[in-house]
Structures are given as structure tokens and as C-alpha cells.
């Protein structure tokens, strides 16, 4: 409870698990902001639950997590962003969805509401639709500057988002992102949904991380209902999570090289990715392993021929991948593009609590598998690679090292896979709350869940790692040439859908 010692709070919410949630007044809320601004803890999430706002905090040294809740008076609360910039977009989203206003927020512009919905504040006090008004991009002034607008529809097989570049010749002076295009209203669809329906929605927050979302959602539901997952199911979950990480890292490593016009790596990594997805399909009957992790365990057994195919995959990757790493490392034209390009400073990575390879390439060693040691990672041996440089090259190398770790983890899982049940019955008739945190390939996914006394969802909040990575991309591209943007963007590979929800 060390984290909460410095925060004045009244009651502790009884049925919130596994970490505490406390009710605070303005003074406690401000103390938490001080802790964030002074770097004593990191922001894990900030979300609305009309008429309340909740803030999840992490003490990075002890691994303590706590949620603090403030009841808004007249729909207002003291701005976190005023002193801690990582909260800016979260506050803008809360305002769009709930109508709760952050007093003294540095940026009151809308974020997810682009003016096309028929309703205002869809999750709070609903009102008539906002009139679409021209969006005011932040200014960048100077002689010879020009703007390059890109998107929302991009020139490739990519998700939609708008990027507004201000450039001086070839050099980017300012990049401003405008997101929200794929906002589907997932959190409103969650309200009143059964656990099964809600798990399906969570699994489709970001398709590339469907396993991680289902994992975090199941963790939250199980914590709330105090359900213990069979050991075999825990191992199978980790098997899926590592296969998902492998597939995505292969895809990313190849695609980053492709954005530097080195298509041989792209083709070779594409083969490894395809083989990984085929092994996943052989194991669990779905290439992306959607809807296999469910609250209480997993919904299907590992197919007997699947394990053999995964072992073949490990053999092939161990044969081919080292050669590809060598190729990456020894191709001067490729290194020329990735080394010192798109640097994220260690200070920014720490301040934003950047997860995944974005944080770890800039010295932030956080990995939910290690810090929270959820089953079965408490029994598996693995390293969390960390680098200092913070450039595109470092983000590639973190992925390379993580591929190696995932191979070892998968091997350990297959060797230690215990026999037994794969699902515990779930059922609930009490109001209860749970928080889940799982490590997706791009960083930690947070799921906060409140269940009603019929076992349905009263409120569910999903927070993708991208929320704290997208803003760093704006910082990383500054001073780089426009042509390096695809490279930087791919090295982040933030989720649009996971962010927009």
C-alpha cells in the first residue's frame, strides 16, 4: 500500500481486486498529480465512469498498482495533464465520451469526437450532436515552412489516421496526429453485455493483439469474481501470447526493413510470420487465436498435432532467424536508415510510461510479465531486453531479442505443460471489480471491469499501450526527414483501433 501512503483517501472499495481502489477528494487527487509530475509513479490509465473519474497509478520500483477515484462536482475535476502531459489525450477523450471537464487542461480540443456522431457525450449526459467545426492544428510558424496533410486514408494496407506535418524543406518541424477515425464505441457496447459478449468485444479492440486483450480481460474478470484458472489453461494462455508476439515481431522486423526499401528481409520475415500463424492455427483452430482465451480459462484444448508443428516452427526459426539478424546487422544501407533515426529520449519514455519496445529501447525496463509475474510467467525463465539508444535500430533490436526470449518461453511451456482441466466455471451475482494487465507485443494492455449483480458488465475500460506511445512518435520524428516517417512509424507500430476503440 506504499503507493497510497502519500495520497489522502477515505474509503477503500471492498470488491476491487487484485489491487486496491480508493475514493479520494480533490486534495488526494492533487497529491496523486504531484506524484506523477515529480516522477514518483507512472500513469497506467485515466478514464471516466460518469460521474466519476478513475486514475490507475504504478510505482515502478515496487510494482505497486492502485486506482484512485474522484467524484466530479458539476462535471469537473482537476486536470492531470496541466502538470503531467501524458494525460492530455486521455482527458480529451473523457470529455468527448462523458462530458467531464478537466479544469485547467492545457488542450481542450475534442479528440475522439470528430463531429460525425449523432450524439454528444455518448457515455455520460447525452446531448445533441456537436456541430462539426474546423479542427485547429497547433501552430508552427517560420519562413519557408509548409504543411503536408496525410490521411485518414493512407496509401497502403494500414489503419486510418491523420498526420499533419509541418516541414522545412525535407525536415519535419512538427508532426501533429489526429486520431479517432476508427472509434467504434466499444466501451458503450460493453455496457450491459454478458461476460461472453464483452470478452468478444475486448478481443476485437485491436486484432493484432487479440490474445493479449482476451488475456487482460480474463484477468480482470477472474480477479473480480475471484476465480482461479487451472494451471494448464494458464500455460496455454502464455503459449498463445508468445505465438502472437512472435508473429507480430516477425511482421514488424520485416516491415521496418521494407520501409527502408530492403525487401529481402520483408519476404523472409513474412515466411516466418506465416509459419507462426499456421502453427497457431494447427494448435487452436484460428490463425490469430481469437476468442480462445475466455474468463475462467481457455475455450479449447491444444490440438495434438499443433504441439508438433510448434516444435517444427521453433526449429525452423532457430535455423533461419540468426542469418536474418546477421543480414540486418551487416547491411550498411539498412543501418544507415535505422541508426540514429527517430530517437525517443529516455526522459520522455519514463515520463510517458511508454510500454513495449518503445519504452525498452529507451531504457524503460517495464514488462507486465516480469513486474506482475502473472501465471505462468512466475514459473518461467526469461529476460527483459533493454537498450539505451531509443532509435529505430534499438526498437528493431528489442524485437529481435524478444523473439529469442519467446522461442525459449514456448519451449519451456511445451516441456512443462501440465495435464488437467482447461476451464473453471464462472458465475457471479455480486457487484465486483477487477483490473487486468497483460503484456501484448507492443506493450501493456490494461482492462478495468465492473460487473453488476447479474454477472453482466456495468462498465469496462480498455487502455492500449499506444495511448502513451503515439505522442512519443510526434517527438521522435522532429528534426528527421519526411521520408523517414514511414520507418519511424513502423518501428512504433502503434494501434489505431486499440487507441480509438
Amino acid at each position, binding site marked *: 500500500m506504499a503507493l497510497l501512503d502519500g495520497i489522502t483517501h477515505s474509503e477503500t472499495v471492498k470488491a476491487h481486486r487484485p489491487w486496491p481502489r480508493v475514493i479520494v477528494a480533490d486534495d488526494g487527487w492533487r497529491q496523486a498529480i504531484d506524484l506523477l509530475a515529480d516522477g514518483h509513479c507512472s500513469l497506467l490509465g485515466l478514464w471516466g465512469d460518469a460521474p466519476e473519474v478513475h486514475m490507475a497509478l504504478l510505482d515502478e520500483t515496487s510494482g505497486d498498482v492502485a486506482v484512485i477515484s474522484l467524484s466530479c462536482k458539476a462535471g469537473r475535476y482537476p486536470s492531470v495533464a496541466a502538470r503531467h502531459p501524458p494525460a492530455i489525450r486521455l482527458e480529451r477523450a473523457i470529455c468527448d465520451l462523458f462530458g467531464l471537464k478537466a479544469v485547467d487542461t492545457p488542450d481542450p480540443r475534442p479528440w475522439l469526437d470528430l463531429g*460525425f456522431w449523432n450524439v454528444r457525450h455518448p457515455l455520460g449526459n447525452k446531448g445533441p450532436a456537436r456541430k462539426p467545426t474546423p479542427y485547429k492544428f497547433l501552430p508552427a510558424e517560420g519562413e519557408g515552412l509548409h504543411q503536408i496533410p496525410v490521411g485518414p*486514408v493512407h496509401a497502403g494496407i494500414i489503419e*486510418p489516421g491523420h498526420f499533419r506535418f509541418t516541414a522545412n524543406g525535407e525536415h519535419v518541424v512538427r508532426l501533429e496526429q489526429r486520431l479517432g477515425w476508427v472509434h467504434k464505441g466499444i466501451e458503450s457496447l460493453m455496457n450491459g453485455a454478458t461476460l461472453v459478449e464483452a470478452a468478444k468485444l475486448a478481443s476485437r479492440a485491436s486484432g493484432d493483439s487479440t490474445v493479449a486483450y482476451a488475456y487482460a480481460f480474463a484477468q480482470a474478470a477472474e480477479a473480480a469474481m475471484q476465480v482461479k484458472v487451472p494451471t494448464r489453461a494458464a500455460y496455454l494462455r502464455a503459449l498463445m501470447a508468445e505465438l502472437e508476439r512472435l508473429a507480430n515481431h516477425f511482421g514488424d522486423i520485416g516491415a521496418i526493413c521494407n520501409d527502408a526499401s530492403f525487401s529481402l528481409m520483408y519476404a523472409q520475415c513474412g515466411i516466418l510470420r506465416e509459419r507462426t500463424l499456421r502453427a497457431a492455427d494447427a494448435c487452436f483452430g484460428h490463425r490469430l487465436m481469437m476468442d480462445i482465451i475466455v474468463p475462467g480459462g481457455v475455450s479449447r484444448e491444444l490440438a495434438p498435432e499443433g504441439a508438433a508443428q510448434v516444435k517444427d516452427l521453433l526449429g525452423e526459426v532457430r535455423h533461419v532467424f540468426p542469418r536474418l539478424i546477421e543480414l540486418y546487422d551487416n547491411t550498411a544501407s539498412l543501418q544507415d536508415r535505422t541508426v540514429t533515426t527517430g530517437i525517443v529520449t529516455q526522459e520522455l519514455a519514463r515520463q510517458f510510461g511508454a510500454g513495449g519496445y518503445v519504452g525498452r529501447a529507451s531504457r524503460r525496463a517495464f514488462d507486465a510479465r516480469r513486474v506482475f509475474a502473472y501465471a505462468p510467467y512466475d514459473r518461467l525463465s526469461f529476460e527483459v531486453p533493454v537498450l539505451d539508444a531509443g532509435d529505430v535500430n534499438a526498437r528493431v533490436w528489442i524485437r529481435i531479442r524478444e523473439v529469442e526470449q519467446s522461442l525459449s518461453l514456448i519451449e519451456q511451456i511445451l516441456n512443462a505443460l501440465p495435464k488437467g482441466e482447461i476451464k473453471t466455471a464462472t458465475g457471479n451475482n455480486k457487484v465486483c471489480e477487477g483490473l487486468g494487465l497483460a503484456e501484448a507485443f507492443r506493450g501493456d494492455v490494461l482492462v478495468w471491469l465492473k460487473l453488476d449483480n447479474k454477472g453482466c458488465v456495468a462498465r469496462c475500460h480498455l487502455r492500449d499501450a499506444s495511448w502513451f506511445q503515439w505522442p512519443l512518435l510526434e517527438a521522435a520524428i522532429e528534426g528527421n526527414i519526411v521520408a523517414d516517417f514511414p520507418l519511424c512509424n513502423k518501428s512504433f507500430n502503434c494501434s489505431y*483501433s486499440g487507441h480509438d476503440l
Partner: protein
Amino acid sequence: MRKTLLESLTHGPLTEPAPAPDEAALAELAKTVDRTARARLGRSLSIRQIDAGSCNGCELEIHALNNAFYDLERLGLRFVASPRHADVLMVTGPVTKNMREALLRTYNATPDPKWVVAVGACAVDGGIFGGSYAVAGGVRDVVPVDLHIRGCPPSPGELLKGLMALLDGANGATLTSKAG
């Protein structure tokens, strides 16, 4: 690099034979696609992909069509960067209200004749996202659709079957014989 390249030469291609066209897709195309348009488009089609609100699962599998196993370009199908160059718009996702206008503008920027292929369960009618304040519906609620490829997400094999039907659809004779 030399070793990798040499091995690729000696191992032979990984590319698998293209599947037969999907029968259901052929039947749908027989109803929707105008025969003269088919004749003009021929067997080589340029595809512009648009994510109108998907979870990005469909994008992953569409991407896979370019890998060595499926190698879409050998069939005369290729992804292009601009709607101005496209014959086919491949649209994924429920169409979000935020993306509705962008989709319409992209559709209008595509020269005639053009086909629209809606990919994924959500693209049919909004799927599990249907009914949300932020979702306009399926793709056909915004632009006319010629072909649906279902699945959550459809596997590259399923995508390929649907696209093969599109190519066969481009060849009037085959279409007539298959569709009876």
C-alpha cells in the same frame, strides 16, 4: 545474404497453387457485376484497400496475401496506393461514422468501372459493433458492394478464393458456365 538468396533458389518456391474460386462468391457476383464492366476490366485488377473501422485483424490477413505462400501478384492482382489507380476497392470493418465520409470520397475518387469487395464479418452489417452510436453499419450501407468475403477475419485462403471468383467474374464465359 548470399546464403539466404542461394537457399531460396535451390529450395524452390513456397508459393502454393491458387484455390478454385468460391462458389458462393461467384453466385453473388453473377447478380451484382455488370457484364460489360467485366469485359473491360479483364484479368488484371488493381486493388485499393480501405480500413473503414476494422480492428486491424482483416488487414493482417490481407497483408499475408503478399507473402511467398500466396503471392497475389502472380494472379494479376496487386495493391495500389491511390484510388485513382484502382479497379477494386477492398473495404474492411464496420463503417464508423468518423470514416463514412472518407470512404465515400475514396469511392468517388475511383474511376468507373469499379468493384467494391467488403471483407470480414463486420463489413457485412457492422458485426458485433452494429448498433453503436459510432457505427454507420456495413459497407453496403454507405457504398454499393459487389462481393462479400466473410470471416473474422477471413484467412488468406478464403480471401484468395473470393478474389479468384472476382477474376473469373471478369471472364464472362467462365462466369456463365459456373453460375449456370
